[in-house]
């Protein structure tokens, strides 16, 4: 870990002002906000993140609230802890998929520390990204190559991969936010703006070190979830051990069954994509159909058509299909 300066700020403005000095808000940032620290500190210890300046945002008032808005949407502060969010009455009542996703992640201790904004920005678990002994990692050092391709990549992504990077986006929460059409609210040097979550994460392409839409100075202040009509929801996570592990494949689903037909279907998957993976192909295949195994299978096949596995993670294709089919079956029967 390198030496760094720590500043505790009391307002979003102060935070933004300090952070504006970083040349990038992506890999290589020289200023970082610290929320729960469960992800950032790990990577700082490994010298993967080397900020010279940390801005502690935990004392900024009002960022740890969950509030219903007049328009029916739910406003979730950036500093709401994952464990609090999972138990928030509004979330349990209207967005249970989010609660389930949060509770399936990490451990109770980590969830007590982890925040909404930190979870949105958690970085990949790719072991080569984490280990400086491996020089090849395009995400860490642009242009250096990718050690995972041709290396150990059992839990790497099969969707959205490029020849430059196949790292999995590891979050559970963000998969749920995908199907809830969350909107990310950012305060930056040029003022406030909103980014729909579907536009927030970037595909690795030839620039895997650029992971999201944030610019120098940008502070996530909160996330809003649009009001939903009454829906059935589920989050299903498959992994090697029964708890305290990242997903090999997970599925978040929101839908209605009206008159024996599937409506308002939204499907996203975790553990398989280079970003939390919304699956419009599956949604299209399901929308308006009568639920049934054949329809579910067709949706799963459609969603994974573009999958590009490598030797050790090819099993994720059938696994992801099982996961989606099972989630669809369970939620329609609920």
């Amino acid at each position: 870990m390198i030496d760094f300066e720590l500043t505790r700020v009391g307002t979003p403005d102060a935070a933004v002002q300090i952070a504006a000095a970083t040349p990038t808000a992506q890999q290589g940032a020289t200023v970082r906000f610290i929320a729960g620290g469960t992800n950032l500190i790990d990577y700082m210890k490994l010298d993967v993140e080397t900020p010279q300046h940390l801005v502690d945002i935990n004392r900024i008032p009002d960022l740890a609230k969950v509030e219903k808005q007049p328009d029916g949407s739910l406003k979730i502060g950036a500093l709401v802890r994952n464990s609090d969010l999972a138990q928030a009455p509004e979330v349990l009542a209207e967005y249970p998929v989010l609660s389930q996703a949060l509770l399936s992640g990490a451990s109770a201790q980590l969830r007590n520390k982890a925040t909404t904004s930190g979870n949105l920005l958690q970085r990949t678990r790719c072991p080569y990204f984490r280990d400086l002994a491996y020089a090849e990692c395009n995400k860490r050092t642009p242009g250096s190559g990718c050690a995972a391709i041709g290396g150990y990549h059992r839990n790497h992504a099969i969707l959205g991969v490029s020849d430059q990077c196949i790292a999995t986006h590891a979050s559970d929460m963000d998969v749920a936010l995908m199907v809830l059409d969350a909107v990310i609210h950012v305060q930056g040097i040029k003022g406030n703006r909103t980014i729909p979550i579907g536009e927030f994460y970037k595909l690795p392409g030839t620039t895997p070190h650029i992971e999201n839409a944030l610019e120098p100075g940008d502070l996530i202040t909160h996330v809003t979830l649009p009001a939903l009509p009454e829906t059935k929801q589920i989050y299903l996570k498959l992994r090697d051990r029964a708890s305290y592990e990242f997903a090999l494949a997970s599925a978040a689903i929101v839908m209605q069954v009206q008159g024996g037909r599937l409506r308002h279907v939204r499907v996203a998957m975790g553990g398989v994509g280079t970003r939390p993976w919304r699956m419009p192909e599956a949604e299209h295949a399901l929308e308006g159909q009568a639920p049934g195994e054949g329809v579910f299978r067709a949706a799963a096949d459609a969603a994974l058509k573009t999958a590009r596995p490598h030797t050790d993670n090819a099993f994720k294709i059938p696994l992801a299909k099982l996961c989606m089919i099972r989630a669809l079956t369970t939620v329609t029967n609920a």
Partner: protein
Amino acid sequence: MEQQTPQPITESKIVGVPTPRIDGPLKTTGTAMYSSDHHFPGLVYAWPVTATIASGTISGIDSSSAEKMPGVLAIYTHKNIGPLYRTPPSAGFSMILDERRPPLEDEIVRYYGQYVAVAIAHTVEQARAAAEAVKVTYNKTPHDTSDKLLDTPTIAGKLKEVTKRGDTAAALAGAAYKHDAVYSTPTETHNPIELHASVAVYKDGKFTLYETSQAVVNHRDVMAAMLGVPPENVQVITRFLGSGFGGKLWPWPHALLAAASARNLNRPVKLVVGRSMMFQSVGHRPAIDQRVQLAADKSGKLLAIQHDYVNHTSMLDDYDEGCAESTGFMYSCPNVLATSGLVRRNVGTPTSMRGPGAVPGLYALESAMDELATKLNIDPVQLRLLNEPEKDESTGQPFSSRHLKECLTVGAEKFGWAKRNPAVGSMKDAEGRTLGWGVAACTWIATRTDAEVNVELRQDGAARVACGTQDIGTGTYTAVAQMVAHETGLPLQRIDVVIGDSGLPPGPISGGSWATASVVPAALQAAQQARKQLLSLSTKTDGCPFKDKSVDELEFVDGVVRIKGQSSGGVPFAEILKTANVRSVSGTGKSTGLFGDPNQKFSFHSFGAQFAEVTWQPEIARLHVSRVVTVIDAGRMINPRAARNQIEGAVVMGVGMAMLEATEYDHRSGGPINASLADYIVAVNADCPNIDVTFLDYPDFNLNPLGARGVGEIGLAGIAAAITNAVHHATGIRVRNLPVRIEDLLVAPGNKTS
């Protein structure tokens, strides 16, 4: 000392009674001092620099900028670490270590993670930063970390016979029912929560070393030899151990780095091995391939067993896992051949992991038995009962105490085995999940090694018992106290157990599950000697009511000296000592072990049966071990509570072995790539089955007067086979390459998705 014929002790108020650990409060209140908790004025920290190649030579080490960093005191490399020696050959349980090359001996690198330098600084952060700033350049040579082992060149050039009788080849050729398969187990890494650590204090030519050691006496001998000082100049202390699982049996190179640095700087040095280094340079269970061939007649009677195993070892050391340890005596069979082979790989030296040899060996053998049972259409419990031997057919010795049949039948009864439908996938639970039921037998060596114990009866009314063994979390403190409580009649609260110090009378290693059994005779004898001294003192002390009585007229009961058989008129021993103005009386007990004795009359082994239930949900490829019934025949349990705890822990570790654990090497770099607790998956609470443990109570008085054997390892033997056999019963898939992974099961019937 003359080996005494043990007098069986059948009755006891404390031995065999479930007893809470006497060291429990120390641990739960955080007052127990683990090795890395020790701190001294002027103490500085060491952080190793590890090789990032798996084979080659160091061409240069540039430590110039690291040396200038804040707080840095020294950077040691092969050029300036100072004298470190290799050990002379081991004898008995002395001078044992698995990685024999002292660290920083030369510029040659043979495995990824090998120490190439060490940084010393005032804080651990400074030391680590300096270590990371040391620039090492290498001349790389090709390395080999391949896990394909069988049919690759072995060190000896041929397979070594481990046990042999009859004509196995002929029997295999002619048999009507045969099974032949290869079982592979991966490198497994011990992951005790307590990291390996050394706190080395050097003063006036003497070393006091606070180590994470399962064998303080051997540790002392090895360190003295490698540091080049007489053994009396080294004291090794391990008061508490945050578990070892065999990984802490013998010294590892970091201990030498700490001690040599303390010597060079003449100040205390602390070195705590990082978690990723735990995967590199402190041993592991090696990767193993085992080919098992079985032949039987139509009735299921075994006609031949051939068991050939190959394990990897490091480039310099010959570690033999010993997988065929039990192959010769497990079943009755006229033709048996077992062979071993070692192959060199560019990996750190392997070492014992809980149940070395038997655990992987029985995974293979007991899987093969299950496969044979399927072929024969015989119930797998029956197949084992059918092949129960009368004696140890590998040596001709009678078994001291073998109750495997009862383990199997009692286990079957408790598990409900009679309800098993052998058809694959035919059984369901109330929630509709498919059930798989599997069984495996298990065994583990029972023995005793040399031990010396001192018991002191003190004027303050307490007894002190001292022995150079150690408690690695298994409950040795309590077991030793129980032995002395039994012999003296003192309550546990008045017994001080002092262990974990090489300066004490030499005690057994905490390995092989024989520490308890080894201590028993010496502890009892020591207590008897102390009692004799006490009675003798009573007859010679003015003012003592027993003055001038004969010792034979007296007895020592419940802490009181009295005339034999008279419940009144007794005097507490503390009063006698006070009257005599003697601070304490003491006795030493010394027993010679049976380990490796060619004239043993018996074949000593513990036995057991493991029954496992898995639930299988093919629609999401989810497998869970839901229930395990374990029946163990391991002599008398000194403390059934701690013993149960050992078996339960082993079963959980077995779930890890069967379904989760594997150290993955990146074969391009040669380094373990999942070297963290987040990426090396061990079982968590949610993976734990319901565990039902039964102990058959057959004291083994041929081993020691209390009839105690040991339970540290047997619980892990057979469990992986019981689970994979259950997986086959549930899914129809036979996984012969551990761990069983989701991807192995995706092709199971019921998973139609491609």
